[in-house]
């Protein structure tokens, strides 16, 4: 069997249309994960023991089990347990966002001690309330510091959207498999899908580099 480059090109239009679904899911999931991760970090900073214990249990589950299983749990498990049946795309976004929230919260926790305690004390002495200190002093600096790791997490999310093909979301990988099944040649369309993921992630990393360069000017 010979590699057929024209076949890759001919499957590109349909695959790239489907990749827009991946992009949409990834953007939504990433935004939700940023909000969720920040919320988790704030809650953890309150140091309420039972709450932090619960978060630790959830974290070890999310970190310790494959995301594919988590996707299944939300798509198939949630309706069985609560009767709430989410459409495939919504279930997928929820699973990825939830998973990523915990990872982002861990990233934030890791960099939080790098923010000088003296700054927080000085902010308090100037009369800033704890909420304002979080919003205007801690979080802006934290996000600057963790931006490379966030971009990394973003690429993980983009790749993770491919997993949603197993819960019937019509995205790039699934469409490429459909093309492959129709033509009895699976290899080339999958390469087309791979190219789509690569393009999205390269764009994301380039955006990340631009951001870093901007932050670098502000320096320390």
């Amino acid at each position, binding site marked *: 069997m010979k590699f057929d480059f024209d076949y890759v090109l001919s499957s590109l239009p349909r695959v790239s249309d489907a990749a827009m679904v991946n992009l949409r899911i990834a953007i939504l999931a990433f935004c939700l994960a940023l909000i969720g991760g920040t919320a988790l970090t704030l809650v953890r900073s309150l140091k309420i023991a039972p709450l932090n214990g619960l978060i630790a249990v959830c974290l070890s589950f999310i970190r310790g089990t494959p995301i594919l299983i988590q996707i299944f749990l939300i798509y198939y498990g949630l309706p069985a347990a609560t009767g709430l049946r989410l459409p495939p795309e919504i279930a997928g976004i929820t699973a990825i966002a939830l998973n990523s929230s915990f990872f982002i919260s861990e990233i934030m926790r890791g960099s939080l001690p790098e923010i*000088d305690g*003296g*700054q927080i*004390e*000085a*902010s*308090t*002495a*100037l*009369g*800033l*309330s*704890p909420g*304002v200190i979080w919003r*205007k*002093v801690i979080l*802006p*600096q934290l996000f*600057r510091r963790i931006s490379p790791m966030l971009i990394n997490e973003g690429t993980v999310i983009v790749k993770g959207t491919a997993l949603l093909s197993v819960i019937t979301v019509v995205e790039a990988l699934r469409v490429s498999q459909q093309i492959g099944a129709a033509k009895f040649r699976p290899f080339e369309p999958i390469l087309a899908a791979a190219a789509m993921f690569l393009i999205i992630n390269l764009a994301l990393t380039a955006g990340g580099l631009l951001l870093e360069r901007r932050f670098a*000017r*502000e*320096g*320390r």
Partner: protein
Amino acid sequence: MTQTALEAINLIRRFGETRALDEVYFTIPKGQVVSLVGPSGCGKSTLLRTLLWLEPPDDGFVKVGDRYLGKDLSPEGLVRRQSGREIDRIRPRIGMVYQSLNLWPHLTVEQNVTRPQIRVARRRPEDARDKAQALLDRLQIAQLSDRYPGEISGGQKQRVAIARALAMDPEIMLFDEPTSALDPELVGEVLSLLREFADGGMTMMVVTHELAFARDVASRLMFMDHGRIVADGDPNTVISSRKNARVAEFFDRVQAFHPDFRNPHQRRQR
């Protein structure tokens, strides 16, 4: 009648068995320049943190201008704890300049000075900016407004930190060892800036190891040891007094490095 800028009333702070603050009382009238001197570990840092209510004392009151900070004491003797919000509003009336300065590195010089004015004092952004420009101008760093703290020198950063505190119109400025984090060549610059403030009538309390400043610029010296203010008064009197053994010993040791330190008359004739 002179108004009071800052008053400490029976401040007590215990850490286990040791007393970091032991019945500290003092009143600083408006316009006075006080230096706070003492060996390390004597409770100076705790005192500063307590005065700002960052570390509430086990007992005692702090009064800034005519308002209590942290705990209210009514004329009838009723004690009431203030809410976090109330405390945040009164706190900036003590202008604190930290040794490590603690500027916000992600904001420009101007934003560092305007942000607390807008957020805490609820000033309009344009008023805050005018105030910031006036202060930066007075401190001769107006040309740096758009720079970030990472792009300016240590001495310039200190001026920004001073401007940030002054912008809140404090009753008193507290300086925590303003010269010890700086390059030796900048020390003189900072001391002359403080002297300028003193001549301008600013109320200040300066924690310092710079004894020449304590003697020549400050009009009052408070000596702290083991959480107590053990000597308080005219700097020359405190320095040359032999009444308190601990104080005398401290200045004896200092004298070894500055031979004519104890001899104020020589300096006075300048």
